């Protein structure tokens, strides 16, 4: 890394009067700092590729969910941005303290950075939990996201309802056997079975209408209505679509019951400001499939971007934790500077991720 204008040792010995023996480093920075900057330039490419891919995918997509569809909370994102900016300040103040050889003060700032970084990760974990509890996963076995309300979606809703009904029927039978029909648990099972009965009758009507294919527009509208009921608790039409079905009366009655739930004001109060709020949120045990156009690609990109960023935060936190027992005097200033550079870069990535993921 260094170019030297000095002659070799032997030559040097022979000519004591040689005018210049100065050592000229190729780059005016320490090896450690050079390595950190080289590493950061690869990181620039890494995150630029990830963020760029996200932008290209997002604006080339036929549909993309709004932040509220996927339960993103802008204030939480802004809070996390603020936390990371604060941590950037504390790390730079730590560096200044180390340069001034105030080791204990430097340690205090590094500790503050560690705490702030942990707060960031904690908030991120809470946000991930929110997504998971709404069935938003990047991978199949857990994900309940469907791209559109079609027959495939209706069939998935039916499977879920039927498996729930089977489960609660068995529980009800057990209560019957144990002669505990009047217990609180048994009553809860009965009320759940009543809701499931209504949903099954309603879903059957919608699916039959869609499958018979007689009126494509009406069938599509009915499927979208069902998705709207599950996702956003939107009201459904009052009468059964398949009029010649023997269970048409049952389906009409079920629709009336479901619309009663929709107009339940108490739940609407709760819903304010929490993004999409549907049957799934009022009855968390339902866990019905949901329709989020573009939701699968959204989940893939969101978890990939924030996941890689979180890994970087975690690595930074590990290094800060290692630094705590060290003496952070002027001898360690170079080390503090290098980890500081890395940490500012992590902050930098979040500065772009926050508007792109939460506000676009």
């Amino acid at each position, binding site marked *: 890394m260094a170019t030297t204008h000095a002659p070799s040792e032997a030559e040097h010995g022979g000519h004591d009067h040689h005018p210049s023996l100065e050592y000229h480093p190729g780059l005016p920075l320490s090896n450690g700092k050079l390595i950190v900057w080289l590493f950061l*330039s690869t990181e620039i490419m890494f995150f*630029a590729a990830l963020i760029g891919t996200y932008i290209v*995918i997002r604006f*080339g997509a036929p549909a993309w969910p709004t932040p509220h569809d996927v339960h993103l909370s802008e204030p939480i994102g802004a809070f996390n941005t603020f936390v990371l*900016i604060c941590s950037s300040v504390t790390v730079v103040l730590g560096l200044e303290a180390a340069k001034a050889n105030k080791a204990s003060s430097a340690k205090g700032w590094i500790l503050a950075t560690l705490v702030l970084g942990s707060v960031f990760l904690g908030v991120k974990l809470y946000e991930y939990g929110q997504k998971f509890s709404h069935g938003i996963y990047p991978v199949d076995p857990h994900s309940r996201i469907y791209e559109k309300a079609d027959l495939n979606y209706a069939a998935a809703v039916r499977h879920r309802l039927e498996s729930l009904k089977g489960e609660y029927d068995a529980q009800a039978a057990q209560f019957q056997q144990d002669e505990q029909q009047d217990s609180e648990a048994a009553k809860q099972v009965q009320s759940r079975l009543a809701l499931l009965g209504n949903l099954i009758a309603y879903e059957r009507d919608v699916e039959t209408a869609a499958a018979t294919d007689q009126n494509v527009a009406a069938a599509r509208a009915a499927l979208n209505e069902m998705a709207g009921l599950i996702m956003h608790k939107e009201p459904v039409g009052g009468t059964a679509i398949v009029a010649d079905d023997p269970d048409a009366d049952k389906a009409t009655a079920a629709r009336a019951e479901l619309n009663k739930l929709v107009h339940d004001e108490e739940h609407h109060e709760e819903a304010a400001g929490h993004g999409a709020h549907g049957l799934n949120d009022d009855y968390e045990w339902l866990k019905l499939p949901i329709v989020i156009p573009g939701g699968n690609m959204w989940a893939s990109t969101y978890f990939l971007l924030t996941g890689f960023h979180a890994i970087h935060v975690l690595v930074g936190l590990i290094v800060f934790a290692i630094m705590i027992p060290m003496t952070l005097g002027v001898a360690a200033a170079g080390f503090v500077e290098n980890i500081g550079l890395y940490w500012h870069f992590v902050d930098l990535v979040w500065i772009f991720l926050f508007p792109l993921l939460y506000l676009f």
Partner: protein
Amino acid sequence: MSEHAHAHDDGHDVGLAKYVYVFLALCVLTSMSFFTYSSYWPFPDQPNIGRAFMMAVSCTKAMLVILFFMHVKYEANWKYVLTIPAAFMSLFLLLALVPDIGMRGRWLSEERRLYMAEPPAETEEPVVKHAEAGEGGAETEAEH
């Protein structure tokens, strides 16, 4: 440049007050991008204005962090050797994605259309047109 001169260049001029100003500027800028989310934002119907505004704000924030917190403002010219090639490389990486991924909606196969997300109402028309063109093409091919 001797060791001593280098150490002197290396940010000693940066007072603590400067960090406080940069921190305040970053906080103000964050609240500015958050402002686009609030109901006071004057262009709720034109998302592109908000997006351009947020990107401008983000780039400003990034510049502040890079120049002052990462001390790049006070570094010698080696900073260009490392950052400019990396920036170009990332630009190429991004541009390489546009034809395959960014424009993937322009050539939809029937199968793809079947499983893809439903486009929102206002953009539905062009996509349907493409799909019909695709169908027509398939039919004429089958006829031949």
